[in-house]
């Protein structure tokens, strides 16, 4: 699972949603809320979340000729003793993209999209955004849950792929990409946080 979105300016209260607007939609939302209450009432205990230090990837340029790029990161949860219980959490991708056309007099602006996901053969891609005028930053965010069997040699590991794609077949140019990943995780089936529990992000 993955989602990506353009970062809109935050409203004073909460952010706008893409849900339906009618009474039926509110009925569905309330049904979901009730289901959430039931699920929480029977949910498994978990430790508190531990945040990883933000991983800042090397900036790079993506041309409209190349169109696609992938980076891989590894999120790893460890403790002073080997983990015996599984962990879970979530990871978030933050991207700043700037369009630099080869010929700045051309008004063309291509679409651009990102995705953060477990390494799968058919990765989901987020919604595209339209890049801004030359040099203008566009901010995007994407996220993915960290769950499933993760225990490897006493640690929990989640290999993730970070995909970037720009529209090809348009005027030549490059997208200057700055990106970073954050993550947090907790241990399941216990309230107690294992000693020296830590989460770290690296490029394998």
């Amino acid at each position: 699972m993955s989602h990506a979105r353009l970062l809109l300016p935050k409203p004073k209260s909460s952010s706008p949603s893409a849900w339906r607007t009618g009474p039926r939609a509110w009925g569905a939302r309330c049904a979901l809320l009730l289901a959430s209450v039931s699920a929480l009432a029977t949910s498994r205990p978990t430790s508190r979340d531990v945040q990883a230090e933000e991983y800042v990837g090397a900036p790079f340029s993506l041309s409209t000729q190349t169109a696609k790029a992938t980076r891989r990161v590894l999120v790893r949860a460890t403790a002073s003793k080997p983990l015996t219980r599984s962990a879970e959490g979530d990871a978030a991708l933050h991207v700043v993209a700037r369009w630099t056309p080869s010929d700045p007099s051309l008004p063309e602006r291509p679409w651009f999209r990102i995705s953060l996901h477990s390494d799968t053969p058919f990765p989901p891609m987020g919604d595209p955004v339209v890049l801004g005028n030359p040099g203008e930053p566009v901010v995007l965010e994407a996220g993915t849950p960290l769950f499933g069997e993760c225990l490897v040699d006493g640690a929990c590991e989640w290999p993730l792929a970070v995909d970037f794609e720009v529209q090809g077949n348009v005027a030549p140019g490059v997208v200057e990409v700055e990106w970073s990943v954050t993550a947090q995780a907790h241990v399941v089936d216990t309230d107690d946080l294992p000693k020296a529990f830590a989460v770290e992000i690296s490029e394998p």
Partner: protein
Amino acid sequence: MNASASLPLARLAALALLVTGCPSRDNGWVEAATPPEATVLTASEPRVQRRVQVRAAPEPGEKLEFSMLNLGIETTRLAWSLPDGNIPQVHPWLRVRVFDERDERLVKEHVLVFDRPEPTLPWPLSFGPDLPKPLREFEATYRIEFERQGPPSEGTIQVDWRLEGSALTPYPDMKHLQLTLTPL
């Protein structure tokens, strides 16, 4: 009880409070919509703007407040027409943006790429507004901007749409609240 153990209980309490705000048989919905419109965009004229005034208020003599107001763009058809019928290499993007003219804030943005003549319709693009507390009156003007990719993309893009709104009143018969969406 430690802090981590009390967290699910806190979430449970918060959700229970939210659930009490759900509509019941004692509430009623008031709905309104603008007339359907077909907006046509070409590569040479790639942008169209529309303004809609939204007003929700009690009928004269009523003193009720409303706690939920939902607005969204309902798209009934998206079509990309090409002169020779063949899909060219450049698949044009279509961007829909909604601005709240009270503070010029961008409240909604959605982009889709035409990779076929009639792509899947997006969800109705909901843009709130979030009401911090029950209100007696709400009035705002929204600017809706449709923009498509210019050259070298080709063809004509048509968007059939209307703006929809609904408000929740504390009465089941819905006649106490007026909701109007007026194209300007």
